[in-house]
């Protein structure tokens, strides 16, 4: 298993004696650790989100995507099947697909016009036999051995995943029953309609985004907007769910009546302000369209997918790491076929909560930047992850818990051999 540099024997990578109650900075800042994450996590035994089927509904439709940092093309073949290939010509490595999305009969690398089928098989090499009996490829050149590097693909309820590993377990087993239930509560069988994308860079380590959504403690403290307008307050019915491995999670809460917030809780939440109101409170309405006790769920599906069900604003967030200190987040906002125009506009209005300019979203991005800034400028420290010691690691029914973060690092350390 450990065929990379022997990081675990290097004293720089010693884990703190407190175990999972501490996370050392090098987890977030070290280039060798990042390289191993690409090999063992994104290119390892994981199902990586790559697209929604609704983005490539017709034969020949394709979309650029990523598995970890690696650019891939997701294409629908003539028979309707979905293929995921590295965006790298088998000849001279050119990243041949330059469009964000489109429709093609075949992929032609612009450099020397090597031509590939929609499934990545090499179909044609110009001047393969040379000209006038001179030049050309060797007679024994094997077209079948020079296709694009293809990944393994699975789909569930219109969501497309890819893996570098051939013998991955089925997605349902990968998610586990509890995470699968929440996944299917959002992707409830209705066909998806795409409302658009947000893309932004975040100057922080990619795992901080997972941790932010495995950290229900921050929600009522950082997100003053939620508390001010009573959408989420400490004491709401809530759950921080983790799967058996600790890698996946769902942060769930049920909207409650702000007028019933207990006085003692108000004091702890500096943000709570009695009587502040919105001019257009309707954008915060929750239209109960899901078979779920939760009005909000944020599913973190290892390693690169977040499924946002923030009341009625629904979105995919795809993590694309670009190094230890930065990642790109691509959001795909969606609704369902059959949504009325009023429902679509409600989703779009409610979208003001999330995304890179969202009332909540911008705060998460800023907080993650602050954390990375802190580690880069005052280095070689460690993070304190002590909340809710009774739970140890994994699922917790209190918001005031970091047990899901500990569970994630239990898994991460195992996979990384650190």
């Amino acid at each position, binding site marked *: 298993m450990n065929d990379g540099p022997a990081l675990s024997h290097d004293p720089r990578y010693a884990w703190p004696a407190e175990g999972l109650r501490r996370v050392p900075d090098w987890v977030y800042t070290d280039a060798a650790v990042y390289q191993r994450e690409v090999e063992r996590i994104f290119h390892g035994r994981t199902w990586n989100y790559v697209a929604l089927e609704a983005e490539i509904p017709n034969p020949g439709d394709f979309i650029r995507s990523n598995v970890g940092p690696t650019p891939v093309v997701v294409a629908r073949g003539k028979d309707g099947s979905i293929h995921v290939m590295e965006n790298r010509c088998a000849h001279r490595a050119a990243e041949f697909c330059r469009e*964000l999305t489109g429709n093609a009969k075949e992929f032609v690398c612009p450099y020397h016009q090597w031509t590939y089928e929609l499934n990545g098989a090499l179909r044609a090499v110009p001047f393969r036999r040379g000209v006038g009996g001179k030049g050309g490829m060797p007679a024994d050149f094997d077209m079948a051995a020079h296709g694009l590097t293809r990944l393994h693909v699975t789909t569930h309820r219109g969501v497309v995943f890819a893996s570098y590993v051939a013998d991955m377990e089925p997605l349902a087993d990968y998610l586990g029953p509890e995470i699968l239930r929440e996944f299917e509560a959002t992707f409830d069988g209705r066909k998806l309609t*795409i*409302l*658009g*994308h*947000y*893309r*932004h*860079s*975040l*100057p922080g380590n990619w795992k901080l985004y997972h941790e932010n959504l495995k950290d229900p403690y921050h929600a009522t403290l*950082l997100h*003053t*907007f939620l508390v*001010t307008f009573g959408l989420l307050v400490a004491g709401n019915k809530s759950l921080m769910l983790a799967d058996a491995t600790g890698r996946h999670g769902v942060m769930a809460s049920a909207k409650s009546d702000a007028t019933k917030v207990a006085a003692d809780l108000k004091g702890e939440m500096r*943000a709570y*302000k009695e009587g*502040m109101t*919105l*001019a*257009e409170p309707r*954008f915060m309405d929750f239209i109960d369209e899901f078979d779920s006790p939760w009005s909000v769920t944020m599913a973190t599906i290892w390693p690169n997918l977040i499924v946002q069900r923030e009341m009625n604003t629904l979105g995919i967030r795809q993590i694309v790491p670009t190094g230890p200190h930065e990642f*790109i987040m691509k959001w795909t*906002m969606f609704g369902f076929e059959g949504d009325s125009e009023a429902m*679509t*506009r409600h989703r*779009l*209005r409610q*979208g*003001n909560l999330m*995304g*890179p*300019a*969202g*009332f909540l*979203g*911008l*705060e998460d*991005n*800023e*907080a993650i*930047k*602050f954390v990375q*800034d802190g580690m880069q400028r005052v280095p070689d420290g460690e993070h304190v992850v002590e909340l809710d010691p009774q739970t140890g690691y994994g699922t917790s029914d209190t918001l005031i818990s970091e047990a899901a973060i500990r569970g994630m690092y239990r898994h991460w350390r195992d996979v990384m051999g650190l």
Partner: protein
Amino acid sequence: MLDVPAPQIDSRIAALLLHHEIDQFNARYAAALDAQRLTEWTEMFTEDAFYLVTSRENADRGMPVGLIYCEGRGMIRDRAFALEKTAMFAPRYLRHIIGNLVVLGEEPNGDVRAQANYVLLQVLFDRPDATLHQVGVYHDVFCRTESGLKLRERRCVYDNLLVPNALCLPV
């Protein structure tokens, strides 16, 4: 002496004045946002205004989402209120440069359609340089009111593929 009939001069002067009036409006708009006077910013819209910030990627494909999506001045006021009273983000300077104004035409109701390019520069207090935060086009509908021009619609369509981290203040 210009050898041009009088009515034609009038229409040219009228076009010049309208162009100037919108140009002045955009300069005031930029000044309000650069000084982060968000209440003043909200007063530059009509009650039924639509304000959108979205990527060119979405606009070109007819995708309706916005980073900011406000139907009506109430939502614009809520945005300003939330940013001023509840939002946590690092302090920063912003500088809007608005140019290449084109007055596209008038609607039957007297509204004026226009567009202008914009550049938004940002300075964070922990980084020495101004960075290009956003570059795009305002697609506007102006309404003439007793208190001057107001925006009935401003769609800010930015060319950047990636938003750098977060868009904390309006465009």
